[in-house]
């Protein structure tokens, strides 16, 4: 105890002296190897965001290729083989390498700032998660470049994806990519839960947590309970293909519908794993740009939680045409439609917020308004496809393609782009161009609707999804051409975003701490935030701390300025409990990820990889957790 009292604490220092000291102990080491060892949630989060957007770009290019192919009947731009790979790659990339990771990426960057702590919980696990995501994504895309891209659809139905009907390595690549990304997603989910539960700033009681953080908390629970199902599914698929297990072999007691149950038990919550963070972004943006808190804070939170629970009870609506018992299917109609209630409640709260607020029409708000207009269409067409009789017609047609793009792009990508405009100043320190943002919004809004609305009609007039071409006498040509034109405009809007980001990174106006006069804690520090996030941990006395008092920030003192320390607080009341050491940078997460990658990829080629792949992983893990003998480890 004597030694401890001699340690320098932040109450002994002030101002620049304090910042410099904290920066020195929290910063990422310089140099190439330093960067590889970083465990700073902002560094990892930024990498996560950029990588996810790179996959968005790649997935988007694939969409453009598909729209070129479908623009006219009997087009020979793409062969059947290429087209089948491309639509599978598009779906897999967008779902597993863009939508889920990008939401978790924003959470990795923002949640620690918004709850007022210095790093995410388990920062090394966080770094490991990023490497796994990166390696899994690269593995999928390099395979595709080598013409081993999966070609069995993003839900890889058996028996098509079994060894008998697809004797190539393509489905193995798909299955193993799933394992990579799910490991990454599960790790982030646990980090977010523990960060929100234990690292909130003192005084941030449960009813003072920002709505975006609530949304990410609910999302993380969904990840934790949904993704194990796809892990079991992809593992069993690869075992069937590799060591002749019989899970899906109907001649040996297996059943193809087991796959569909396992897949959709994950696959439906997956939609909400993507959508719920979007709602969190909407709430954050709306509050700031309507200049008032979102109406019905408890209603919004209860809606999020209700959505989370309900999302586990409606997977069967993806299987209405597989010959299920009629009454059972009818019940899943009702449970599927029921989710409209919490979603509706959130929409009503947002409308009420706009109604009372004083809207400031900057780009983030434009995207939120676009979101409401588009997402409501997707939600309502979702009510339609939840109906068994209607679904028997529209299932697996372009109507469904239209529906889920309205939900996913409308419900998640529009809020996400709004979030990019909203938080870019915090992350980059500079503002994005409002003028380009205005054009971006209108091109995206018009392009999106022109691209996807006609697909509703195409589905109704008989166009199934996943066809690489169609004949001229099917009367689908005009609407397809229109859709392709819309897709071109939509793609162009993203080019504008890219231009805007590149231009603004260099010459955008400086943002300052709080350019939008927003109310949450991430705006209480500099833009971009210093490695330690906050010189002193804030104390929260109100749900909107920076609106409650924008002059002075009550803070905590007494944390170490000689080593990395975060403040742990109690679950409900956020009472300070422990000054916990936070890990230093380490190369071991990267080495562990490399060992795991060798294990995963090797096991596609030989089951023995499980044997020779395990010791390196074990060594890397011991290296990761073995104490370094540094001061914080030795108390």
């Amino acid at each position, binding site marked *: 105890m004597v030694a401890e009292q001699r340690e320098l604490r932040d109450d002994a220092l002030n101002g620049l002296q304090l910042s410099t000291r904290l920066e020195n102990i929290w910063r990422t080491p310089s140099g190439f190897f330093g960067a590889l060892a970083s465990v700073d949630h902002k560094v990892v989060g930024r990498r996560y965001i950029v990588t996810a957007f790179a996959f968005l770009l790649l997935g988007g290019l694939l969409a453009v290729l598909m729209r070129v192919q479908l623009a006219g009947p009997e087009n020979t731009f793409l062969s059947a083989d290429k087209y089948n790979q491309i639509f599978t790659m598009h779906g897999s990339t967008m779902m597993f390498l863009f939508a889920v990771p990008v939401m978790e990426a924003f959470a990795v960057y923002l949640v620690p700032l918004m709850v007022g702590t210095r790093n995410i919980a388990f920062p090394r696990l966080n770094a490991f998660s990023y490497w796994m995501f990166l390696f899994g994504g690269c593995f999928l895309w390099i395979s595709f470049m080598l013409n081993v891209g999966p070609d069995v659809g993003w839900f890889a139905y058996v028996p098509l994806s079994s060894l008998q009907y697809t004797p190539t390595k393509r489905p193995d690549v798909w299955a193993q990519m799933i394992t990579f990304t799910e490991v990454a997603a599960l790790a982030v989910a646990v980090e977010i839960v523990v960060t929100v539960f234990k690292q909130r700033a003192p005084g941030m009681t449960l009813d003072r947590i920002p709505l975006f953080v609530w949304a990410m908390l609910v999302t993380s629970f969904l990840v934790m309970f949904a993704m194990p199902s796809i892990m079991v599914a992809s593992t069993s698929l690869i075992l069937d293909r590799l060591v002749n297990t019989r899970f899906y072999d109907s001649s040996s007691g297996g059943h193809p519908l087991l796959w569909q149950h396992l897949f959709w038990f994950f696959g439906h919550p997956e939609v909400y794993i993507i959508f719920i963070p979007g709602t969190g972004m909407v709430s954050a943006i709306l509050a700031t740009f309507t200049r008032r808190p979102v109406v019905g804070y408890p*209603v919004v939170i209860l809606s999020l939680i209700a959505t989370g629970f309900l999302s586990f009870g409606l997977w069967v609506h993806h299987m209405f045409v597989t010959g299920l018992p*009629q009454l059972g299917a009818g019940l899943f109609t009702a449970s599927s*439609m029921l989710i409209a209630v919490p979603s509706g409640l959130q929409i009503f709260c947002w409308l009420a917020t706009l109604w009372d607020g004083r809207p400031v029409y900057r780009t983030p708000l434009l995207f939120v*308004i676009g979101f409401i207009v588009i997402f409501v269409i997707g939600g309502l067409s979702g009510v339609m496809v939840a*109906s068994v009789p209607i679904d028997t017609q529209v299932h697996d047609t372009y109507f469904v393609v239209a529906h889920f793009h309205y939900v996913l792009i409308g419900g998640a990508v529009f809020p996400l782009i709004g979030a990019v405009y909203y938080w870019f100043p915090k992350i980059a320190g500079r503002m994005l161009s409002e003028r380009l943002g205005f054009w971006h919004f209108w091109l995206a809004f018009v392009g999106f609707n022109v691209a996807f609305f006609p697909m509703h009609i195409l589905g109704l007039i008989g166009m199934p999804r996943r066809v690489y071409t*169609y004949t001229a006498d099917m009367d689908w040509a005009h609407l397809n051409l229109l859709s392709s034109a819309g897709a071109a405009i939509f793609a162009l809007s993203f080019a504008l975003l890219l231009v805007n980001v590149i231009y603004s990174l260099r010459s955008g106006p400086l943002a300052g701490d709080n350019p939008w006069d927003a109310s949450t804690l991430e705006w209480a520090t500099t833009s971009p935030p210093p490695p330690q996030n906050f010189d002193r941990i804030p104390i929260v006395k109100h749900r909107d701390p920076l609106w409650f008092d924008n002059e002075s920030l009550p803070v905590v003192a007494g944390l170490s300025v000689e080593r990395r320390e975060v403040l742990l607080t109690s679950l409900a009341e956020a009472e300070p409990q422990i000054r916990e050491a936070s890990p230093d940078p380490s190369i071991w997460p990267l080495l562990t990820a490399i060992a795991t990658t060798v294990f995963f990829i090797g096991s596609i080629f030989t089951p023995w990889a499980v044997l020779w792949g395990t010791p390196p992983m074990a060594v890397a893990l011991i290296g990761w957790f073995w104490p370094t003998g540094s001061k914080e480890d030795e108390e």
Partner: protein
Amino acid sequence: MPVRMRTALVPSATLPLAACAGRQSALDPQGLQSDQILRTFFIFLIVAAVVWIAVVIALCVGMLRQKRAADQPLALHRSFERTSGRIVFVLGLATLVIVLGLSIVSYAGQRTVFAKDENALTLKIIGHQWWWEVRYEDGSPDKNFVTANEIRIPTGRPVKVELESADVIHSFWVPSLTGKMDLITGQKNELQFTAKNAGTYRGQCAEFCGHQHAHMAFAVLALSPDEFDRWRDHENQGASSPTDPLGKQGEQLFRARGCALCHTIRGTLAGGQLGPDLTHVGSRTTVAAGTLPMSPATLAAWIADPQHIKPGNFMPRMPLQSDELIAILHYLEQLK
């Protein structure tokens, strides 16, 4: 020398060919079931349109209405908070009532669509990559026969199709007559529908089933009951032997060049089981599972080079001399 007829024949095959396909649209219901589904759909559509318009109006009014002046984000009006809370609650309740109402509408529609009639004409459909085997297995065994890629049914009488798969999952979908049902490996599904009017209705596989999923279509020809019975009696007979020399040569080549290893022509020695039954192929309306309309040119193009028309399908390209191709073509055309 193998034929190089492709250049001569294929252009006509890949040109737009109207009027052969038949209707394939959920918005053009010609069956009792598709009619019911469309009615249910319109109820949902009207509700959805009203809700969406209401939301957009609320959004616009919310943006345009007079706002309080001062920028004090936390200076909230207690009365607004209370009233808006109540309105949100009422609207949530209204949403609940609407979705429960729609669930009931949906279930009522579902009951009608999936109602079973014991008096139905039964046939079995087996999905293959990428064609449809159609087995008429109704009544006495001597009246059973097998055909492919084309289903003829009587109007006004319920038809029960039993759906199975020989390989991967497919989905049977004739939108003008009814909704779809999957053909699942190791499972037997069934679907009933009734065509109201005579006509040709196109159907297509709706579950991605691999390489040539896009070219796995079929035709449903709804005939008057008399016409159907005549067709059925004719179809039940084996193929008639060709009488002309070219036809005889074609029949002989059909076996000698390996076609018969995969295809059956009832009444002849050709008894292969891997590909579609060709007993009455000359009377069908399409070639290669709805890929091309039936004509001498398209059939010749298909036999000459199936991998060009439907790349990756399981019919190999057989090395045929041009005179051999002409003989086989002549023979097959006679199989009416």
